[in-house]
């Protein structure tokens, strides 16, 4: 057998060799112990190290929270906005951060306190005026988004499962995504309006399904394909039926990719919805967030326009940092599938 450790004599290390260094050196043909005396130490009584586990000081601990760091970033951005708006002094073009937030809270809930004579009609009017309060507009938007999102995800799931098990299914999915994924959902709105009729919420749902389905299917499918061969063989080894195989092996194994797809799908859907409402002003009977922005732009309430956009941003932050983060912590992070 050849030298078991070629080049080992060039090795230098900062910690003493374990085992029997004398014998190792003798084997490598190095003079034993000539210039390097051996030594042993007793480390049991050592107190110089101090506390092995030192507590972080309060500032370090506070800065350790992600929410503190992210809030600081948001706060700095708000300050920059406020300063910039004050500097340009043009409320019609760029209202201050303070004015925009004030507009946000002013428009948030129905103005019940302005009702002089209480009646069912008056309540309905407060909720459903032309310039309806933000919360109701938001609710209208999110309701549609959730329906479209759910159907889109379900269809994507069916498509990618079919694509995983059959070759023709894969060809089908790949062709369809190549065709429709680059097609902007907004471009389908006029067509949807012709098919479903103006003001019919199904038009918007149709467009939402289109914008959610392709990115989710694409990610899901690549997740299924990337899930290890070993795990699939394990599933087959258990003799699981196709349904349980998908639900108990394939989906959890592909979960990191699926989660990415769900996030992208959510963002696509949200953008499409707001843009469609803004441009076409259609969303059933109650407008929606985009409609709110559009109306206030027409009325030259720039601070309310900003309030509408802020609402979109808040919901984005909430979904990403609360909902998706929670799902992530309870799944892929806990399972060690994502850092």
């Amino acid at each position, binding site marked *: *057998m050849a030298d078991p450790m070629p080049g080992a004599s060039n090795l230098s290390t900062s910690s003493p060799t374990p085992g029997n260094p004398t014998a190792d050196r003798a084997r490598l043909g190095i003079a034993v112990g000539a210039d390097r005396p051996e030594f042993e130490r007793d480390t049991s009584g050592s107190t110089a190290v101090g506390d092995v586990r030192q507590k972080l000081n309060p500032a370090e601990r506070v800065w350790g929270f992600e929410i503190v760091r992210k809030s600081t970033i948001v706060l700095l951005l708000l300050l920059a906005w406020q300063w910039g708006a004050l500097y340009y002094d043009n409320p019609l073009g760029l209202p201050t951060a303070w004015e925009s937030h004030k507009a946000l809270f002013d428009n948030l809930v129905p103005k019940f306190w302005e009702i002089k004579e209480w009646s069912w009609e008056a309540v309905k009017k407060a909720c459903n005026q032309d310039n309806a309060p933000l919360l109701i507009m938001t609710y209208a938007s999110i309701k549609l988004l959730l329906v479209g999102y759910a159907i889109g995800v379900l269809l994507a799931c069916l498509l990618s499962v079919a694509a995983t098990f059959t070759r023709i299914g894969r060809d089908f999915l790949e062709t369809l995504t190549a065709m429709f994924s680059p097609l902007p959902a907004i471009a389908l709105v006029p067509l949807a309006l012709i098919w479903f009729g103006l003001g019919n919420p199904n038009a918007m749902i149709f467009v939402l399904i289109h914008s959610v389905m392709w990115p989710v299917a694409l990610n899901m499918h690549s997740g299924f394909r990337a899930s*290890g061969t070993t795990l699939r063989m*394990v599933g*087959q*080894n*258990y*003799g699981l039926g196709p349904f349980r195989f998908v639900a108990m092996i394939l989906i959890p194994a592909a*979960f990191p990719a699926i989660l990415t797809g769900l996030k992208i799908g959510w963002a696509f859907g949200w953008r499409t919805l707001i843009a469609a409402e803004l441009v076409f002003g259609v969303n059933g009977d109650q407008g929606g967030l985009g409609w709110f922005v559009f109306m206030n732009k027409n009325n030259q309430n720039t601070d309310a326009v900003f309030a509408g956009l802020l609402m979109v941003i808040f919901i984005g932050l909430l979904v990403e940092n609360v909902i998706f983060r929670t799902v992530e912590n309870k799944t892929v992070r806990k399972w*060690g*599938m994502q850092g």
Partner: protein
Amino acid sequence: MTLQYKTDEARVTATFRVSFQVQRSDRFILLGPSGCGKSTLLKAVGGFLQPVEGELMLRGERITRPGPSRMMVFQEFDQLLPWRTVRENVLFPLRSARGLSRGDANARADLYIEKVKLTKFADAYPHTLSGGMKQRVAIARGMAMEPDILLMDEPFAALDALTRRKMQEELLQLWEGTKMTILFVTHSIEEAVIVGNRILVLSPHPGQVRAELNSVPVSDPIGAKNLQDRISRLLFGEDNKVVSHG
């Protein structure tokens, strides 16, 4: 039995007319250098692929597809479901494939987790375990199913030498306790002699049977050394001595 698999360009013959018989409570070893189709052979027994010639029988029944009567322990550490704890990993096939009640399955899972000395880690997720521990969970999972035959595809190949040695001994102890039939694939002559009681030696390209030998008990180091030399001569010719794989 002849096995072939298809690549994009060609049909490759992995093993050619290999025939062997495993008896109950055997620790049957498929031994050979890489390229002799031993893993392909094991996958065929597992039912993951079909022979183009000949057939595989288990207790008089033809093997046509994968099933829990032939639990498989893979070489890769990622064979455990990362989204389940150690106990859930052992439990899952007991519940879903064997259909045991929750109580029975729990009791049996705990028993086998104890056998592989992982009781302390029963509620840990796989990513927190070392490679050797993961393989022990995989072995516990396979054994807990009490399959007709336990298939092991170089389960210790990815482990370091010390852990590997320990795992071989533990496997023998486990076998003593269960007398389970084991079909074990390895490329290490030393491992074959330690773990097996019967060794099928395969030659490469395509895999063909070179010999079928009885192993010697662990208590006979000289006999073991002689057997290793003999297998080495069979596989590599006269001049080669055993190269230890650790």
